[in-house]
Structures are given as structure tokens and as C-alpha cells.
């Protein structure tokens, strides 16, 4: 028994050494494992920004009163809107929005100032170009908040003359509720933190599945599998020996990505980084599992890569890593729990930004371990069956 395990480990060691030699000779692999992931993280972090600001606002002011000018300037002075010109007719404003020259329009009616002074409620119209649904939703929130602030200002000013006129009797008026929003974990609302932490998982799965499927299929394409089978090593050993060097190599990518996140985007680390690394290791292993599994189904490198294209985009988009899961249709949302990237994304964000511990994330870890074991054993089983 003892001799057997000894033979097993020595054979395994020899095979692993062979894989390492092969990897070392393949300069391109090293390049393709370092440069694309770094570029991906940098590009995604810098370029994917959904922030809505500086919307071009066209204004029609039919009131021409201090009140209307104050409302308009409260819009244009905010960071959310910038003046896009004044218009005299609704058709002109409509045309400008149609042609994409304006993102929003504000129409102040003729009776605005008069009615306000008399204490009557007044309507203003806010027109938003909703072709981009996200921009419209956020712009709507901005406009609502600006008008609420304007109303509060009015209420504060308006109460004094009222008190003075009536002469001491307090006005029968209920108080106003305001929401004070505290943005936790990311008070500066840096969008890159969200994107970068999400991209991390995507690129781990993407790169490990690509690298693994190429490595597995290379041996078969060149016909050297038979040579391997003629050695005393059995198929499980061959697969394990292939996986271990790849795993170690991909862990380098993990540290590289963490470095880029810290240096270029200064993503905070508020929790225990070991949890992220553990999650990343599981993610890499399941990526290798996906790649190996794909490789067993395909005949050529070309086919394997194409099938990776088939698997990867859905994995990446249905992970909540770049767009929130809550924005997906409700029938699609439960499916995202079957995605290792979803769990890893939750782990990365929770640990790095919120400082959560294992007590909050044990479920995600359990799921990741489950996926890893399932994918790896499935791929080993398929690989053995194919060789046998």
C-alpha cells in the first residue's frame, strides 16, 4: 500500500515536471496569461461607467419671474444637468430632443410665478429622452430630488411672511419628511469599484477555461496522448498532472488582478483577503473544470475555442458582475445562482468593500466548492472515458 502511494506520487511528480517544461517552452502562453487579463481589468474599470451626469437640459421659461429663474438655475447648477439652451416653442424643444441634441427638457408654464406667490400648487413639465432606460431612471430621480429641494426652500421662505401676516398664530401645517441618504461602503459612488470587482471573476473563469481546453486538446491534436497512455501512469494521474501546473499558473493571474485593482483603482480591502484568494482558487478550479469538460467534447482546438465562446458570454452576463442581477427579468434571476461567477462576485465585493466575514458568506463558499467538485469530477470522468 505504502509502495503504491509512493509510486503514485513519483509518477505524478514526473508528469507535473513534464507539464511545467511544456508550459515554460510556450512563451505565448505566458504572454496570453498576463497581458489580456491586465488589459481587461484596466479597460473595463476605466471605460465601463454608467454614471449619469451633465445631461443637456433645454429650457422653456414662459413665466419669466424670479421664481422660475430660481427653479431653472437650481437645475442647471446641479452636477446632473447642464444648460443646453433656451427655447421658445415646444416644437423646437421636441425637435432638439428628437435629434439627440438634448437629453432632457424643462417647461415652466406662464402662471408659475403668480400661482406660487398665491400659494397654489403648480406643475412644471420635465421631458426625458428614455431611449437609454438607465439614464432616464436616474435623471428622473435627479429631477425629483431637485424639485423637492426647491419646495423645501419655498416652504422655509414661505412660512415667514405667513406667520407675520397672521400675527403670531402658528400655521396649521404638517411637517415635511426628507430622506437623508447615506451611501455606505462606497460613499464617493465610484463606479469602477463595482465593475472591477465583477470583472475579476469573469476573467478568472474565462482565462482558466480557455487555457485548460487548449492544454487538454493539444496532446490529442498532436497524437501524443497514446504515448502518455503507454507510460505506467493511469488516466487520473495524467489529468491531475495537467491540472496542477495550470492551477498554479492561473493563481499568478489572481495576484496580478488583485494588484491591478489595488494600485490602479484603489479598491479598499476591509475584510480578510484570504477569503477572496480562497474564492479565487475555487473559481480557477471550476474554470479549469469547464475548459477540460469542453475539451472532451470537441475534436479540434478550433471547436473547443468556439464552444468556449458559447459558454463564456452567458456566464459573464448572467453573473451580476457588470450589470445588477435585479435588473434582469425575474424568471432569469434564479438561474444566476447556478453561476460560479455570481457567487465569487458576491464574495469579492462583500469582503473587499463591506468587510463581511465567513459568517455572511459561507453559503456562497459552499456553492463554489460544490461547483468546483462537480465540474472537476465530471471532466476527469469524461477524460478517462475518452482515453479508455
Amino acid at each position, binding site marked *: 500500500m505504502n509502495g503504491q502511494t509512493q509510486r503514485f506520487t513519483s509518477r505524478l511528480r514526473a508528469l507535473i515536471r513534464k507539464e511545467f517544461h511544456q508550459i515554460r517552452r510556450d512563451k505565448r502562453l505566458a504572454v496570453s496569461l498576463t497581458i489580456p487579463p491586465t488589459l481587461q481589468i484596466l479597460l473595463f474599470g*476605466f471605460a465601463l461607467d*454608467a454614471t449619469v451626469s451633465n445631461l443637456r437640459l433645454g429650457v422653456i421659461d414662459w413665466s419669466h419671474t424670479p421664481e422660475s429663474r430660481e427653479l431653472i438655475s437650481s437645475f442647471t447648477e446641479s452636477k446632473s444637468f447642464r444648460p443646453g439652451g433656451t427655447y421658445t416653442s415646444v416644437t423646437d424643444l421636441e425637435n432638439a430632443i428628437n435629434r439627440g441634441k438634448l437629453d432632457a427638457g424643462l417647461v415652466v408654464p406662464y402662471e408659475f410665478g403668480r400661482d406660487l406667490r398665491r400659494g397654489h400648487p403648480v406643475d412644471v413639465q420635465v421631458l426625458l429622452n428614455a431611449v437609454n*432606460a438607465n439614464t432616464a431612471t436616474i435623471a428622473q430621480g435627479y429631477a425629483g430630488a431637485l424639485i423637492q429641494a426647491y419646495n423645501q426652500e419655498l416652504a422655509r421662505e414661505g412660512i415667514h411672511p405667513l406667520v407675520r401676516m397672521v400675527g403670531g398664530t402658528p400655521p396649521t401645517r404638517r411637517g415635511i419628511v426628507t*430622506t437623508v441618504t447615506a451611501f455606505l461602503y462606497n460613499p464617493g*459612488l465610484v463606479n469602477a469599484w*463595482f465593475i472591477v470587482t465583477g470583472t475579476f471573476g469573469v476573467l478568472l473563469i474565462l482565462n482558466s477555461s480557455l487555457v485548460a481546453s487548449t492544454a487538454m486538446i493539444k496532446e490529442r491534436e498532436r497524437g501524443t496522448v497514446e504515448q502518455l497512455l503507454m507510460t505506467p501512469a493511469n488516466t487520473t494521474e495524467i489529468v491531475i498532472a495537467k491540472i496542477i501546473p495550470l492551477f498554479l499558473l492561473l493563481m499568478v493571474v489572481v495576484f496580478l488582478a488583485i494588484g491591478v485593482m489595488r494600485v490602479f483603482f484603489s479598491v479598499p480591502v476591509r475584510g480578510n483577503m484570504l477569503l477572496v484568494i480562497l474564492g479565487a482558487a475555487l473559481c480557477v478550479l471550476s474554470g479549469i473544470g469547464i475548459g477540460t469538460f469542453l475539451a472532451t467534447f470537441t475534436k479540434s482546438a478550433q471547436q473547443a*475555442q468556439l464552444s468556449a465562446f458559447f459558454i463564456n*458570454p452567458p456566464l459573464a452576463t448572467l453573473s451580476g458582475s457588470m450589470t*445588477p442581477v435585479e435588473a434582469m427579468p425575474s424568471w432569469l434571476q434564479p438561474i444566476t445562482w447556478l453561476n460560479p461567477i455570481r457567487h465569487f462576485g458576491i464574495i469579492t465585493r462583500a469582503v473587499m468593500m463591506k468587510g463581511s466575514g465567513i459568517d455572511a458568506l459561507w453559503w456562497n463558499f459552499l456553492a463554489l466548492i460544490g461547483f468546483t467538485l462537480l465540474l472537476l469530477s465530471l471532466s476527469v470522468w469524461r477524460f478517462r472515458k475518452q482515453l479508455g
Partner: protein
Amino acid sequence: MRRILSQARKELTQLMRDRLALALALVLPLILLFLLSTAIALTVHNLPLVIQDLDDSAASRRLADAFRASISFYVVSWPTDQSPEKALTNNTARGVLIIPRNFGRDLNRGANTQVQLLVDATDSNTARIVQGYATEITGGFNQDSGSMAGSGMVTAQMRLWFNPGRDSIKFASPGIFVMGISMFPALLAALAMAKEGEQKTILQVYVSSISAHEFLLGKILAFMVIAGCEWLLGMFALLTVFGQHIAGDPTPLIVGSVLYFFCVSSFGVMVGARIPNQAAAIQAVALGGFLLVFLLSGLIFPIENIPPGLRWVSNIVWGRYYIEVVRDALLQGGGWPAVWFSVLMIAVLGGVFYTLAWLGARRMQVSA
């Protein structure tokens, strides 16, 4: 011309033999179109919210009900003795609304009160949306309780134009369609060309009587056919399932599309000629076709938000111009005056890729 056609036929025959690759190349863009245009959206609904009501008065319950009734939030229960922030750290909720003690009493006295909203801002875009929703709901609450009466108040009537349901599929699906066409013909072309270099069959081409231009054009023509098939399938889906329709003059779309097929196929052949290694060529196409087109073309995230240092790159991203052509043909209908420049740019970029491919093919002979 005859040689170009026979080269194209040889290429297509080779591709036909690889049934899986062919099926994936034709079906995959469709699947992507369906999947991504439903899944890529930023407008969130139905977010989990914890309400901590420390007042427990009629007024506070009314405010809580206003939140409960909105479609933007659903209220999850949370024990009052636990710290509300914990609901955020373990991902039970996206926000916590804290109604302070004496909320109802202050309101009845006519004093202004504040409620606190803690928002999980790990996703800054969602955080902004949560804030907007909450402001609107409290605004509505104020209006209902008549607290603004007497001082006069302004209400905004919001009109959402072009897309009142804020449906992101209409906006996203043409973009995804373009992404599919940018990626797969280029990928197949790069693979075919890299294989030629990897297996040294390029030498056979050199000893034959075919010229470099005929060889390249034949290859490009074959992948333009593939792109055309993808285009037809995708366009059919857009017009039927996604409810798009062609607005205005279709000629810019047709001319632009054919030029774009040439552009992406040339890009693929160029990559394959420059990088005679299938795996590396795939990564290069993935980087160019997928990442650049996905990121820098204004597909989901607006181009204006890209930092200026990177924004110039989007001027040479071919997909960006084609997205403009397709969006114009499907949504706005501006015709030639609106998109002539984009069509021109597609042609120019296609020419550049072709020239680079030609130069690369000449080098392949030396290295082979």
C-alpha cells in the same frame, strides 16, 4: 475573379466539414442576441429593503406602507434588535430605511423630520437609483399628507419620451446584434488563416498560381457569406421577436452592412496572418472583436463616460460606426445625411485591415 470564387468555395467547403463550428457560428449570434438583450440592463426593480420603524406610530406605518406599496422595493423583515447594517453586509437587503423615534409626533406638530436611508453603494449605479426611488416615495408621502398645502408647491410631471416603459431591450438589442456580427466571422476568419500558417499549408498557396490578393479576397469573401447569413438571421429576429422595424431609407443599412462584412472579415484575416497560432489568434480577436466593440462603442455604457485618455480609441473601433448605422436604421431613421460618415469610416477601416492583412500574408511566406 474565377480564382477568387474557387478560393472562397474551398474555404466554405472546409468550414462545412466542421459542423460544430458552422452551427455555432450561425446559431450563437442568435442565442447571444436573445440572452444578452434580456439580461443586460441597469434599471433595477424590486429591490430588497429593510425598514426599521423605531417610532411605530400611525404616521410611520403610513410611510412604511408607501415604501411597501411601490414596485421598486419589497420589504424584507429584519429583527429590530439587530444592527441594520448587518442586513447590508450579508446581502439580505440593498437598503435600510430608518424611521426615528418621535417621527409621528414631530410631523403632527408641524416640525420637519428626517428619515435615514442607508444604501449599499457597492454598486454605485443601483445606489443612485435607490436614492431616486426613495426620494420620489417620500415626496409622494408629503404630498398625500398635505404637508405642502398653504405654502404652494411645485410638482414635476415627468414625460419619458421614445421609450415610456423604460424598456432596455429596444436599446440593447441592436447593439448585441452588432456585437455578434463583429465577433464570429472575424473569429472564424482568424482561425482559418492561422491554421494555414500553423500547418504550413500557406506554402502550397505560394507555389500555386494564385496571387496574394486573389487568395485574401477569396478567404474574405467566404467569411462575408457567413456574416451575411448571420446578419439575415439576426435581422429576422430583431424585426419579429424584438419588435424593431426599419425606419426610413434602408440603403445606408444595406451598403453599410456589406462594407461591414468586408471590414470584420478583413480584420479576422489580418489577425490570422499576423499571428499564425490559433489559440493566440482567438485571444486577439476576442480582445478586438468582443472587448473593444462591447466596451468602447456605446453599447450599454455611454461613450461620454469613458475618460478622455481612452475615448479617442473609440474613434477607430469599427463596431461603433456600424452601431450608429444600425441604430439609425432601426430607431431614428435619419438616412444618408445622418450616417454617411459612419459608412465611410467602415469602408476606410476595412481598407486598412485589408492592407495590413496583405502585408502580413507576404511576411507569412518568409516565416513559414
